[in-house]
């Protein structure tokens, strides 16, 4: 049986470190007194869990709740960091689902029935949405990169190096595995749906998102892969997460002017709208069980992985919208001072 203090310490661990450093000791004292008075209280546990979650969301820049003094040098940039992570996840999942579907569309018969025509339009819309997302990502990243380069300090060196290393791994690995699957062999197939998209670009996107596969859930398929493929399936998501984490750290630490932050929130609004289209498309695909296009059955069948990815995509979009709102409110409050 744990002591009262141990129980208090356990509850305290739910809070972020910066919060614990400021309030931890006094809060633990209060918890000890409260536990001694009311040994069993589900309401207290729920209250602490809710408050700790709020504190963590505040540290992540997802709410405007106050954080211990000096912990966040710039709350708007913390929100922008959260926005960067959420939209990065949206882009990665969208690109993964789209590259698989797009390859299936390329291999679909050129002439398809009139009933599939609407599906064809949806396929084009999904492709346009992913390309728009990529363009918006470039529009968001370039000015931040320039601002980081202009005001480069030693604090930015480590995340910049990690980001460069992770991007290099992704670029080299993506290039190495680009034509590992017959479907990405560079042949255009018979489909004429995506004439504007070079097959090499499609194959590279597929290669970068090689980890997005139901192979993980089938031991026989997994064991049949050669060690190189398996290593890339495991390493590429790690590199991707590392790149996003390093980018978030850069955004939080860099000296970004308010005008640039306001510009980023406007780009984010457009990106959220595009991500909304992709969530709707993913949802339609998962719920109908059929791909939004003329692709044939098995090649683009929506499975458990796609359902989970669509749910995660929707959650990431909700987090992105929340982070954008928080950033906007923080910027407006700062401007009104």
């Amino acid at each position, binding site marked *: 049986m744990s002591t009262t203090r141990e129980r208090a310490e356990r509850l305290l661990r739910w809070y972020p470190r910066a919060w614990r450093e400021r309030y931890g000791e*006094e809060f633990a004292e*209060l918890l000890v007194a409260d536990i001694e008075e009311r040994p069993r209280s589900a309401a207290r546990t729920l209250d602490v869990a809710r408050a700790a979650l709020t504190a963590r969301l505040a540290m992540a820049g997802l709410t405007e709740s*106050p954080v211990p003094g000096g912990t966040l040098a710039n709350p708007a940039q913390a929100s922008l960091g959260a926005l960067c992570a959420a939209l990065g996840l949206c882009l990665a999942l969208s690109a993964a689902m789209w590259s698989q579907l797009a390859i299936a569309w390329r291999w679909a018969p050129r002439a398809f029935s009139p009933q599939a025509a609407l599906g064809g339009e949806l396929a084009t819309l999904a492709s346009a949405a992913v390309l728009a997302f990529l363009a918006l990502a470039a529009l968001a990243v370039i000015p931040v990169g320039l601002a980081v380069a202009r005001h480069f300090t030693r604090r930015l060196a480590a995340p910049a190096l990690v980001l460069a290393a992770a991007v290099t791994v992704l670029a080299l690995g993506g290039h190495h595995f680009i034509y590992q699957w017959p479907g990405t062999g560079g042949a255009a197939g018979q489909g004429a749906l995506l004439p504007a998209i070079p097959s090499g670009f499609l194959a590279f996107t597929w290669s970068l998102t090689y980890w997005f596969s139901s192979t993980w859930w089938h031991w026989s398929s997994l064991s049949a892969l050669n060690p190189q493929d398996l290593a890339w399936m495991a390493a590429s998501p790690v590199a991707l997460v590392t790149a996003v984490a390093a980018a978030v750290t850069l955004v939080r630490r860099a000296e970004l002017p308010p005008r640039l932050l306001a510009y980023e929130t406007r780009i984010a609004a457009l990106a959220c709208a595009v991500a909304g289209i992709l969530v709707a498309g993913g949802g339609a695909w998962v719920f109908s069980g059929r791909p939004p296009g003329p692709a044939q059955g098995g090649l683009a069948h929506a499975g458990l992985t796609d359902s989970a990815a669509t749910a995660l995509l929707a959650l990431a979009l909700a987090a992105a919208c929340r982070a954008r709102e928080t950033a906007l409110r923080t910027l407006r409050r700062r401007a009104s001072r």
Partner: protein
Amino acid sequence: MPKRDGDDGAVLAGFGRYAGPATLILSSLADGPKHGYALTKDVEEFAGVRLAPGTLYEALSRLESQGLIEALEPAERRRPYRLTAVGAAALRAHLDAQRRVTDTGLRRLKTNWGTA
């Protein structure tokens, strides 16, 4: 921090769902500095409301960041908090506004329902 004296009444209203706990805490601290547990017991005694630990510290953190209260040096791992002049002004303005609502409600009850 409020910019003008006229903003005092709006400070606590801006706390949203934390306005209730914030008013109780400021009212308790109006009597002198207190640490977390003493605050909980005092509020329970004068308002009949028990502030849960998580809610109490969320409100304390907001009040401190707005400059309405300030933390004093800890004594035996317990840190007392004190009402600031800005906090006193904000509490006075908020309670005055609440009193106007209370007085109006009681007057209308007396006129139309014969009770007060």
